[in-house]
C-alpha cells in the first residue's frame, strides 16, 4: 500500500509540473475605418499606452473609437502617442469605446474607463496625454 501511495505522489508531482500554459485569442489586423456618414461635430483625444503594453507598440498598431459598434474615428501615431478625432452629432452623449489592436502580439483591447461623446471636448494633450487603461478582448 505504501508503495502505491509513493508512486501516486511521484506521478502527481510530475504531472503538476507539466501543465500547459493558457492561450489567448489572437486577431488579424482589423483595419478599422470610419463609417461614411455626415457627422459634423467632434471631440479629440491624445492617448498613450500603459507601460506594460507600450513595450510591444509598433507603427502597425491601430486605435479606433466606437459608438454603438460604429467606428467614429481612427488614430494617427505621432511620437508614440495616439491622436484621434471622434466624430459625432451634437448633444449625442453616447458612450465612446476605444479599441486598440497590438500588431506584434495580435491582441485587441478595449478601454476600461467610460467615456461619453461631447462636442469639441479635448481628452489629453500632446504634452499631457491620457494613459489608456485596457482590457483584452477574448
Amino acid at each position, binding site marked *: 500500500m505504501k508503495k502505491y501511495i*509513493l508512486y501516486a*505522489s*511521484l506521478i502527481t*508531482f*510530475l504531472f*503538476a*509540473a*507539466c*501543465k500547459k*500554459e*493558457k*492561450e*489567448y485569442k489572437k486577431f488579424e489586423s482589423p483595419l478599422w475605418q470610419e463609417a461614411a456618414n455626415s457627422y459634423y461635430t467632434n471631440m479629440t483625444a491624445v492617448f498613450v499606452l*500603459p*507601460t*506594460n*503594453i507600450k*513595450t*510591444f507598440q509598433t507603427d502597425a498598431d491601430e486605435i479606433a473609437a466606437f459608438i454603438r459598434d460604429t467606428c467614429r474615428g481612427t488614430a494617427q501615431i505621432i511620437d508614440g502617442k495616439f491622436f484621434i478625432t471622434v466624430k459625432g452629432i451634437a448633444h449625442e452623449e453616447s458612450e465612446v469605446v476605444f479599441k486598440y489592436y497590438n500588431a*506584434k*502580439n495580435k*491582441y485587441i*483591447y478595449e478601454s476600461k474607463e467610460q467615456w461619453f461623446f461631447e462636442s469639441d471636448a479635448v481628452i489629453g494633450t500632446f504634452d499631457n496625454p491620457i494613459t489608456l487603461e485596457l482590457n*483584452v478582448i477574448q
Partner: protein
Amino acid sequence: MKNFILCLQFLCVTTFVFSQQNPEIIPAKSSENWYFSASAGPSFIFSSDTHAIAFSNRLSPHVSLSAGKWILPQWGGFFTLQGGTLNNISTTSGYFYADTTLATVGVYDPVIDYVSINPDGTYLQKIRYMNLQCNISYSILDALQYKPERKFSLVPSVGIGSMFVFAYKGIPKQTVFSTQIGLRAGYQILPRLNVHAQLQNVFVPDNFEGRVTKKQTESILSASIGISYSFSPKKFSTCAVPTENIELFAQEYRDTVVQEIVVRDTMRIQSVVQYDNFIFTAFLFSKNNIKPNDNQEVHYENIARFMKSNPSVTIRLDGYADESTGTEEFNLSISKARVSYIKSILVKKYEIEESRIIENALGTKNLPYSLDEHNRIVLVTIL
C-alpha cells in the same frame, strides 16, 4: 571555479570543526558511510512578477543527484547537482544583460522575440539551469540520540554553490553564486536503501536570468521525492570501553598501587594473586581492521609500565570479532590477527618478553558484550 573551491573549503572546515565535538564517537573513515541519492519533483520560482501567472503554470520539473558522507552520526556533507527548467514570469520593466545598447545592459529583453506575450505584457520565460552545491547536513534525531537501528531521519542542510544558467531563447548564459537551505525526511526501507521527501530553497541573485530589477535575490523552492543508496549502512564506532568495566578496573588498579607502595614486594605478589584474571585494559577495532582505532596508544604504555614494574606478571590477549559481519572462520582469523598485532607492538616497541604474553583468539565465541561494535575488541587480562 572560484565558487567551487570556496565550497570545498567551506565543507572541509565546517565538517572538521563539527567532527571534534563528540569524543565518544569515532568519526567515519574516508571510505565509510558514503551514500548516493537521486530525486525529482516540481520547482517553483519566486521572482518579481510571479503574481501574474497561475500557480500551476509556475511549477516546473527538476531532477537532482547527490553524493554525500556522514562524518559523525549527526554531521555530514554532500554534493548536489540539480538541474531543470524554471517557469519564470517576466515583464519588460528593468534592465537586461542580453541587450548591451546602454553599455553593459539595455532595456530590450530579447526573450520577447521567442515567446508568446500575454495581454498584460507579461511573458513566460523558460530558464534552463544546473546548480552545483556543497552542503552540510545535520541529522536531528541522531543528534538527540544515536541509534544505528533507527529507520526515520530528519535532516536539515545548508550549502553554497554555483548556478549555471544556459543561454536559451533570449536568456543569456551566466554563472551566479547560490545558497540553499533544505529539509529532508527519510525512511529506511532496506538496510542500504532509503526513500526520502525533500524541501529545498535555493537563493540566487536577482539578475540570474539576465534581468536586473529592484529585488536583491530570487528564490527557487523545490519539492522532491527520491531514493538514497548507502554504500555501507550508516554506523559509527565508539572509542569508549564500556563504562562499567573501566570503573571496575580503575578501582582494582588503584588498590594494587596503594598496596605496592605500602608493603612493597611481598604484598605486591599477594595483590596480584588477589586480582587474578582481572581485565587490565582493552583495544577497540573498526570493522575488518586489524589495527586498533586511533588514540589508544596510551594502553600500550600502561601495559608496558605495569609489566615492567611487575616482572612476574603475564598477560593474556583475548581477541574477539563482531558477529554481524563475516563467517565464523573469518571472524576467528581476524581476531587472531588483532591479537598478534597487539602482541607484536608490545614485544617490538615496548620490549616486553614474548613469553609473558599469551595469545587467545576467540572469534565470535563467548562474546563479552551485547553490542556488536564493543565486540571488535582485544581484552588485556592480567594473570
